[in-house]
């Protein structure tokens, strides 16, 4: 985990991720050690059983940074908004 600048991050949750966590959005300040999406998920899971439940199968969770799909190794960098959601099922 690389060192990054610590700043407020707006998190959004959708569908069953939202339901498991029990909220649709929140603003967090992640520790310096959180550099990538995977880091952020690992840190969120330490925040309580509802996060552990939501991210239990981290491999199925999709992530978007500032409205763009990213993989779990994506750097959070200067992101303002990170969204977590299940595979999409529209159409």
């Amino acid at each position: 985990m690389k060192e990054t600048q610590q700043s407020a991050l707006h998190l959004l949750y959708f569908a069953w991720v939202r339901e498991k966590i029990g909220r649709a959005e929140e603003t967090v300040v992640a520790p310096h050690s959180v550099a990538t999406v995977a880091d952020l998920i690992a840190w969120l899971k330490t925040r309580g059983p509802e996060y552990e439940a939501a991210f239990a199968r981290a491999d199925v969770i999709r992530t978007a940074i500032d409205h763009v799909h990213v993989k779990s190794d994506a750097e959070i960098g200067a992101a303002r908004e990170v969204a977590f959601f299940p595979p999409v099922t529209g159409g």
Partner: protein
Amino acid sequence: MTVRVQKEDFNVGDELSRLCRDRTDIGACVTFTGLVRNENANHTILDMTLEHYPGMTEAELERIEAEAATRWPLQASLIVHRVGKLLPGEQIVLVIAASLHRQAAFEAAQFMMDFLKSDAPLWKKETRADGETEWVSCRDSDAAAKSRWKSP
């Protein structure tokens, strides 16, 4: 080139007229309409609720439509997706692609649907006849449908 995410129903004939009627440069126009069925995976469905990610859903649909326009010469295109609570028989999604020839129009419409199904942040939750509500699982066939569109 338009995308819309809306609660309201749409009228395919009106949308098609607006895009294609009296245009003399269009040879082929394909529409796809997706409807709520009263059955899914052997469960009777009472209703369905569509959740979306405001801002990103529109951005993804615009990206998909723009990508289609780089692959096929499209005279006109449209993507409309509904959100909120829908009953069986109601319309969910509309895609229109217009081109000179039928092959391009068919392929562009299929491309937009395949990518919408894989990339647009929309989620369905269904209420079944026994009162249970369940988030719809994604289908492996949708990933396969998307993967057949190789990069140009």
